[in-house]
């Protein structure tokens, strides 16, 4: 029974884990800056956009059968497939760079102020490289295992925050002006939906069923709202806006007398590491796979080493936290283009493959 459950739930669990890594990392800070009040509105828009793109992608994937991006796009010819895959790989590689750099920054601020950043990054990159080398099935097993261990820890940390929250601070609830739409601030926060792109690499590895994924999106939607409102309800909007790590600081405000730990943020950081590793290993693995399928003569193992080295260097090059946020803002348009082009391309390609398959069956 448990194996059947695992077969259905592997993809949704991975989906949740990938979202957790992004949401708990930088989302709340970015969302706090998006508008003055009524934060649930941009969050709602985020989820709607994700839902639409996700459906487009999943329908395309279902039509195509068990094919990943490389299998779908490579038959389109050298130029078109390169134009589609290279930006996708570049975007996917941005995810581990930003995730790992974020985590290193968090570690330096919270736990190990004295360690040099290059050592922490090297350790994280080595762990990521090891994780990515254990094969797709292994990555999925690890994703399920780590999520099952760490998701409850994260929920515990969130639950521990609730006594500190003053719910009056969430008002005013309705923002009729929708100012976040006007200035394009909504689009900056859209980095949070990037894990949906990773689902396109899953079909050869495990079953991707639409309904469980949509249900898991429900859980994720709940997390979206909670994460934005935790700092607001604890510190108030104006104070929370000033913080670099509002969520982390919120967890630090908790004092539970019955644990041996003084800081609940410990649990948050531990769980976050697992999620960051889950998404980074999978992106590294899938980028290496795509590059390998584009250039079959290069061995996948060496591509992985190369990409990992690139991740390490790029994350080392980002000098400060302010610069990090600038990069985050700068790649908005590139990101949006990927979000729109890839699902549409998959949808069209999926439809084409399905029609061809039908024709082939009929002609037989």
């Amino acid at each position: 029974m448990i194996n059947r459950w695992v077969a259905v739930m592997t993809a949704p669990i991975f989906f949740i884990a990938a979202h957790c890594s992004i949401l708990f990392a930088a989302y709340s800070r970015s969302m706090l800056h998006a508008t003055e009040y009524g934060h649930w509105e941009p969050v709602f828009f985020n989820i709607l956009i994700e839902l639409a793109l996700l459906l487009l992608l999943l329908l395309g994937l279902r039509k195509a059968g068990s094919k990943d991006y490389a299998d779908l796009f490579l038959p389109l010819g050298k130029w078109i497939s390169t134009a589609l895959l290279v930006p996708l790989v570049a975007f996917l590689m941005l995810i581990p760079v930003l995730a790992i750099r974020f985590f290193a920054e968090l570690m330096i601020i919270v736990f190990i102020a004295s360690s040099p950043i290059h050592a922490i990054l090297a350790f994280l990159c080595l762990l990521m490289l090891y994780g990515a080398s254990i094969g797709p099935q292994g990555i999925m097993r690890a994703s399920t295992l780590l999520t099952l261990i760490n998701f409850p820890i994260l929920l515990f940390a969130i639950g521990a925050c609730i006594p500190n929250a003053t719910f009056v601070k969430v008002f005013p609830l309705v923002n009729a002006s929708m100012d976040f739409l006007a200035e394009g601030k909504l689009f900056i926060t859209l980095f949070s939906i990037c894990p949906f792109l990773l689902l396109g690499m899953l079909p050869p590895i495990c079953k991707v069923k639409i309904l469980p994924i949509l249900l898991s999106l429900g859980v994720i939607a709940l997390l979206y709202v909670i994460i934005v409102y935790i700092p607001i309800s604890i510190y108030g909007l104006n104070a929370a806006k000033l913080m670099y790590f509002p969520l982390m600081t919120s967890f630090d405000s908790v004092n539970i007398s019955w644990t041996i730990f003084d800081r609940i943020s410990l649990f948050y950081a531990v769980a976050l590491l697992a999620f960051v590793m889950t998404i980074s290993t999978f992106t590294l693995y899938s980028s290496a796979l795509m590059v390998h399928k584009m250039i079959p003569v290069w061995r996948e193992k060496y591509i992985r080493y190369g990409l990992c080295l690139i991740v390490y260097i790029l994350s080392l090059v980002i000098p400060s936290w302010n610069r990090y946020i600038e990069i985050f803002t700068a790649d908005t348009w590139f990101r949006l283009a990927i979000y729109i082009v890839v699902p549409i391309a998959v949808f069209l390609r999926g439809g084409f493959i399905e029609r061809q398959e039908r024709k082939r069956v009929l002609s037989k």
Partner: protein
Amino acid sequence: MGTYVDTIKSKCRTQHDLKIEQLRVGSITMWMVGYESIVNWEETIAYISNCGLTTEAAYEDIYVHLLGQEWVPEALDVLLQGKVVLIDSDADRAFSFQGKPKTLERAIDKAENETMPFSSALVFMEPLTTNIGILRKTIHSPYLEVEGYQFKGIGTREASLVYLSECVDKDLLEAVRHALKKAAGQDLRNGQDLIRFFGYNRYHLVSPYHKTEIPGQAVASMMNGRVVLLIDGEPTAYVLPLLFSDFIALDWDRQLPLFVMTALRSLRLLSILIALMTPGLYVALVSVNPETLRIELALSIASSRIGIPLPTFLEMLLLLIISEIIIEATQRLPKSIAAANTLIGGIVLGQAIVDAKLVSSLVIIVLASSITANFAFPHYLNTLVVRILRTGIILLSGIFGIFGLFASFIGVCYYACSLQRFGVPFMNVLSPKKLGQ
């Protein structure tokens, strides 16, 4: 004298237990050859004289009566299987037949390494056939199938692959068969040879097999789709492949109510985590991240460490090495001396090292709990893996603190998830395919 006898006699010079003796059988005088270390000589002669031969019996009669097989001096290795050869030196012909074996076995004993209360006392012994018989007795199933394999290198070793044809995972069976057939020309002496046969890296921490000496455990594994390899001369069964459930679950648990069983297994899982993590956690909390501890606890730790010259990291590593040495020293000593050694190691050293202010008493508490937890989950062989990983975790915790501790834990999780033997993942619970389906 015939060439057959000459060949044997020349062999006798370096094989002292190879016996050759003249014997009157029926109407002819024959030479009887065999290993007296393997064959019971007197009983075999008695068997020949009692098999109904008349005094006029010719070579062919004897051959038929003793169920003989043609034999030439090149086939000396059949003698090693407990056969005896009768040579007719006049005609230079010979045949072999099964001699009466000498008992080189101990009686079936009780479990030495895997004792459990209220469990059957029957355990695997050295001879292959005894073990197969024990398995047949345990399950009484027509589906129990036994395949024989022989590994001929410098020596010859028999092994049997045992499985339940109704339950076994077909892909697994095929993979194991293939590996065993391929290795027929090599020596099988130990587990490392076996790992080499199966084509796995010998530097892996976790072996591809699980050893058990309890037949019930082997049968339970077979019912879950796994296969069992019995090797002649080894008092254990190799269950293939090793799964994570072997670290926490025993067949024995199933005699208890479900809730009790679950609690017991959760306890074992917890003990794995404690064994693996507590020393690292202590090092991380005390030497790198004391601010994460509650202030009262941090103060009490600090006061217990007053006057201690070593850094926590070295303190822990030092005591860990000493405790590992004590474990290693006690396990091969006779029981009576081992107790004395434990006393010296445990009380004298432990007490003295604290009194001498070389290490703090908290380190001893943490280490003792970790080592005790180490033996709370099944099987000594599995504990070795945890013991090695624990040292690695301490090292990383000393460098990166809490971050290093949990990063290395994630690394351990990745390692566990990466293992896949014969197409069966070590973390089988997390795989979409159930074994045997």
